[in-house]
């Protein structure tokens, strides 16, 4: 009886794993199968006005690029402050905990906040800038908590070595701590981008439009993105979905997966050189 039980347990436990892998495969195959047929060079490079998705692709890159450029220095600086400068205190732990919790807030809430605060209150309107700031709010917790971890992992002996040479604190941070934490910082940034690369709800009200002529020429203009474009296509054409939406879904899937793979590679490649 006991023998049978012991043999049964691995089987029982492996079932969910199999189901998970099957689901993943099913998603990839069903989206990829249709998507790959619809995906071609002219779809990627021709304007939305001619049935392509060029503006949506570039718009997505604009969104992500700007959000990362704003969130990275802010997030890393916050983490440096929390680990290196803020005194070990209850308040400090509370802040880190609050930041971690922020990472779990549903994105539609960020979207609502972004619309109310950036678009309306600050008067930025539905624009690239409002979208960036909203996404920054979403990415920041991920970058901060990842960076706090990366910086905390840097051995104290490195800091002591540099301080004992007479290096001022800021140089120790710049020359020793940040370079040593760089792989971890990069990973946290990429994971942050990965989180918002497929984001729809947060930019739904803050920056996206379904159709516009050309790309935004200032940050106060709205922008087209793959996710929102896809969302509208799906809502507008119930039932008869074929071709283009699947190609866009495949692109998004590819983007998110490659970001995560990249983060993984950096993590493995730079694992503990010291």
């Amino acid at each position: 009886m006991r023998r049978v039980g012991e043999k049964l347990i691995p089987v029982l436990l492996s079932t969910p794993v199999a189901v998970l892998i099957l689901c993943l495969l099913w998603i990839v195959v069903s989206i990829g199968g249709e998507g790959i047929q619809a995906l071609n060079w002219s779809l990627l490079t021709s304007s939305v006005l001619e049935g392509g998705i060029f503006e949506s692709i570039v718009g997505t890159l604009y969104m992500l690029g700007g959000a990362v450029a704003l969130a990275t220095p802010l997030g890393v600086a916050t983490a440096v402050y929390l680990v290196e400068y803020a005194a070990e205190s209850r308040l400090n732990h509370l802040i880190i905990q609050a930041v971690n919790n922020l990472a779990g807030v549903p994105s539609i809430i960020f979207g609502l906040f972004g619309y109310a605060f950036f678009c309306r209150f600050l008067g930025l309107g539905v624009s690239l800038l409002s979208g960036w700031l909203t996404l920054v709010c979403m990415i920041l917790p991920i970058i901060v908590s990842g960076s706090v971890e990366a910086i905390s992992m840097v051995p104290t002996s490195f800091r002591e070595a540099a301080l004992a040479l007479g290096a001022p604190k800021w140089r120790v941070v710049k020359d020793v701590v940040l370079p040593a934490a760089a792989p971890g910082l990069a990973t946290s940034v990429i994971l942050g981008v990965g989180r918002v690369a497929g984001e729809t709800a947060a930019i739904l009200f803050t920056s996206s439009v379904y159709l516009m002529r050309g790309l935004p020429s200032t940050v106060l203009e709205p922008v087209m993105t793959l996710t929102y474009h896809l969302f509208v296509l799906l809502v507008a054409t119930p039932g008869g979905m074929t071709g283009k939406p699947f190609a866009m879904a495949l692109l998004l899937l590819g983007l998110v997966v490659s970001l995560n793979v990249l983060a993984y590679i950096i993590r493995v490649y730079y694992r503990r050189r010291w």
Partner: protein
Amino acid sequence: MDPKIEVRELNVWYGNHHVLKDLSIKIPERRVLAIIGPSGCGKSTLLMTLNRMIELIEGARVEGRCLLDGVDIYNPGIPLTELRRRVGMVFQKPNPLPKSIYENVAYGPKVHGVKDRRKLDEIVENCLKVVGLWDEVKDRLNKSAFELSVGQQQRLCIARALAVKPEVLLMDEPCSALDPMNTRIIEKLICSLGRELTVVVVTHNIQQAARVSDFTAFIYLGRLVEYGPTDRLFESPVNRLTRDYISGEFG
């Protein structure tokens, strides 16, 4: 001769734990002072008060005076970076920076404003020669310092400390993690450095203290028990505690 460092009635607490008690000592210039005593007696704490690294320890409190060339290093007007340039430190566990061999030695001078590449090359070569590492590493100066053996790493750390031209070098059990060969090299190095600068070396290896130092201080339970020329202290210790410790009866 005026002492290089004079410690007057030093008291150190970690929280409520009274680690150093009314400790006074005059450390002579260009000599090697060995500080001996059982684990936990406060040797390393004393060392850390001399370059204010003790301030990194949370809950540490220092009272009393530490004069370097007659000026109190705890005076708020003393710039910490300059103090630590003048009073260098070598740690118990070799702690190279996560940089190349070259950068490890050049980092200190760079921080203190040396920019000229040729000057830096010269400093790096000289300091690596002093610690006897030059011939071993001159072909791989750009390799990571972590590729060196532990003994080489410790000599690199000494070279790094020397690169900023310190007047005092504090060494916290510098050989405790090393093999006999590297220990011998470093002991010789300590002897020769003692002619150029003031060396304070903490050790719980009594023979090592006898081999490398001109003066020895014995600390027990946070108090300075006996202090004098190494030969005298080892041949005819005055205090019974000192005699018992150096004859290996406790420790």
